[in-house]
């Protein structure tokens, strides 16, 4: 029934590449996918791709136009990256911790894009996704702020809500965009205080 309904929708809304608009069954067409620029780890921070071109468009549509079907290709993008990043051995982690949204924001958007990405990776590597962080401050979006205010803005925004799942665990923190590192740093701080044994940061995109 669901399948029938979906193919009916496909008829009226022919599936297209979300980045370039070319028609085709994939949410991100092979050309766009192939055009992604992978990045090398810097200062121990792992960012899969540059935040431009197809990744930028796709991520934007994913978050703001709620194209949830983009979770799959973007997740696979991360998996591809992990496959060729020797510094991050997935076997060495106990769980993936997605950067959370504030309650209000989550209600507005209806989903947390990072949760969806995390579950794709988690499925592939058979790692549990554990949302052990909680956002207690509904901060203003980081991209609205100049660099120096971002650290101030995000300070104390996160709290560990499942300390049992954090204490003495090896965690992979996942976020969508890494710009100044303020968000990641704040999360890492919260997790470390809660006693995490090791925390590594992985983001989908790195803004220049």
């Amino acid at each position, binding site marked *: 029934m669901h399948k029938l309904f979906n193919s009916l*929708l496909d*008829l009226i*809304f022919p599936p297209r590449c979300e980045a370039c608009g070319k*028609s085709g069954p994939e949410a991100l067409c092979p050309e766009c996918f192939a055009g992604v620029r992978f990045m090398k780890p810097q200062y121990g921070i792992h960012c899969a791709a540059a935040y431009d071109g197809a990744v930028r468009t796709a991520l934007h549509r994913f978050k703001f136009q*709620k194209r949830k079907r983009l979770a799959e290709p973007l997740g696979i993008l991360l998996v591809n990256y992990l496959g060729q990043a020797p510094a991050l051995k997935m076997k060495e982690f106990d769980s993936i911790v997605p950067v959370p949204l504030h309650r209000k924001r989550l209600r507005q958007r209806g989903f947390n894009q990072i949760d969806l990405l995390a579950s794709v990776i988690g499925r592939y590597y058979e790692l549990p996704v554990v949302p052990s962080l909680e956002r207690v401050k509904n901060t203003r979006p980081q991209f609205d702020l100049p660099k120096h205010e971002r650290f101030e803005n995000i300070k104390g925004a996160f709290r560990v809500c499942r300390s049992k799942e954090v204490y003495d665990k090896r965690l992979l923190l996942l976020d969508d965009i890494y710009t100044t590192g303020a968000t990641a740093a704040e999360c890492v701080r919260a997790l470390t205080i809660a006693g995490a044994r090791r925390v590594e940061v992985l983001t989908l995109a790195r803004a220049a």
Partner: protein
Amino acid sequence: MNRPIVFITIAYSLGIIAGKLLNAPLWCLLIAILISSSSLLYAAVTGSKTSVFLLVLFALAGAFAFQISGLIHQDGLAPLAGRGVQAISGYVADEPKYKENGVSLKIKPDGIAGGEFYVWLNDPDFKINYGDNLKLRGELSEMQTFANPLLPRGMKSYRFLAIYYEPLPGNRGSPLKKIALGFSREFNGVLTKILPPREAALLGSILLGTTVSPLDDETKTSYRRAGLIHLLVASGTQVSILIGVCLGLMRSCRLPDWSAILATSLFNLLLVVVTGGGASILRAAIMGEVMLIGLLFERQGEIYTTLAFSALVLIIADPNTLFDLGFQLSFAATWALVYIAPVLGKKMPQLLAVTLAPLLATTPIVAYNFSQVTPGGIIANLLVIPWVEFLTVFGFVTTVLGFFFLPLAQLFGNTLWLMLVILERIARLVPALPGACFYAAAPSLIMVGGFYAGLILMVEFLKKGGELVVTRKRLAFALLIILPLFVWDRAFSAPASSGRQLTVTFLDVGQGDSALIELPDGKKVLIDGGGLDRVKEARNDDDPIGSKVVVPFLQHKGINRLDLVILTHPHADHLGGLNKVLAEIKVDGVLDGGQADNSRAYERFKELIAANRIKYALGRAGQVIDFGPEVKGYILNPSEPLLRDTNSDSIVMRLVYGEVAFLFTGDLGFPGEERVLSLGSGLRSTVLKVGHHGSATSSGGEFLRAVAPRYAVVSVGARNRYRHPTRAALERLAAAGAEIYRTDLNGAIEVKTDGRELAIETMK
């Protein structure tokens, strides 16, 4: 196939067109459907390609649906028409239209499947509303339609002459329509408080179409001539704008998505109901709804699919919509904005591209339906398009504001008024520019198809980014494509005139006379213009025969100029339609009988001649008009001193071409016939336009013997109150050996001659 819906829509439309053209019997279609569906099944089972069979199946379904729709529509009133006085009860099916001297009602009668009629009550104070029950006694008759070449026949409709009427208790109107009517009334009420009546009606039409705020025909004509009619009728764009504004507002209220979508959908539905749901509105509404549903299911529409989908919904609901002018114009314009404009935009300023593209795509449709080409539309639209969207939003906001706080709305009204006056000016001035709007013989369907093929080729070519380099090879290729088009066009159109041909068309103008002479050298002469004889004091030039029959006929012929107009005598059924002709078409000269007459219509006729500086002459016996080589017009009547009998003082002209002669007699009666005979000039003619619609006191035996017509044409209305043509006259004509043609029975009568042979074609 990336856009299956587009292909399905095209197949279905082609099927409908084929159904209309071929009109194959239903069992044939059923067999074809059976065959193609079993081939489809076979293809599906064997795993070969099914898409072709699927499309064929859709095409057949289209043809089938079209033919079925023709069967379902039934005319339940036909058996009741012309049955004398009878009692009918029913309810008012539309908003009553009040005029200063009465009210016009559309009635849906009880117990009769399929059919509505109009009734006019001479009582402007009769209070009645939409949906009210009503009892009527009187006579039902079919409304007059006219059968003329190139003009659509007009829908069959009925009129009720009431001798008694009485409102009955109860109301059966649909609540939805009542809401719509109530809204329209309120809306117009606010508008008229903000703006003067003229501008109020104009803004109302721009915002919600002419169903909500009716506009007079003259205004519509001037907008059509300016190429701006889309502002008044095609409010689809406005609907899209309003839906967008509504969704934006809802979302900014931070409501969950589904509720914003639901609210906007309801608003969309309200707009459709209020505006009366013309094809253009429905197109915009469906496209808007697809967008909204896409939002709900996190899908994004693809513009061609969305466009095709909305077309498909409309033509499945009613296959006849495909032939609806509003439908065609709306889809052509939208398609052009999506397909052509972006490509043109690379070669020229964006504004010019979005102006030019819809104009290019709609030109063939307008030319085909109105014989009208409006190059001036480019200028008018360039002047208007930059701010008309602002006018729409501003106008709508102001009107809504007027519901709550009138003074502020009235303040804004001043700005609106200024914008509307500027718009009015543009719509009046642009068509007056030389070459801004002209009439050309309607292109054939093949030419229309060729135009679109050329347009698509051009766009595809530009898309490839090619510079237009004309090489000899390409030129030859283009000619190879274009030339056969003309050949086919010729092949399909009626046998081409062999150059030196004279055509006389006796138009079907109901009770009255009008004939167009097309001379071998291309000159055009119009004798009389028909007219409603009940409009005794015809005001200005609003005679419907002129505006609905004679002028459109001339325009469809592509006639922008008449060399001569002859008014045989100034009675309403000959003169009425001429005023519209003089007002709309350039006329070089007028030949008038000059009989004394003090009607308002004749006064207006003289005014128009003076205002347009038309050469004016009195027609008198003895004059000879040189219509080019071999064609002469001999004026045989009236002669001084006039008989002081307007009918018998009609201008009589004998038109001679080679061995063939036509005798045009106006309303000549016995006294006039005697006078013509006494002058002793030759009368012998092949075709006689019978005097005075075949009255008993014309076409005397002696006169007919002198004329000895082979064919007699009686220009007369069906069931006219003079009971023309009379048996006496018909018998005399038969006795004279003439074959009789009548416009009431035959429709328009077209006589073609090369000076020797003669061919007659009738419309019915």
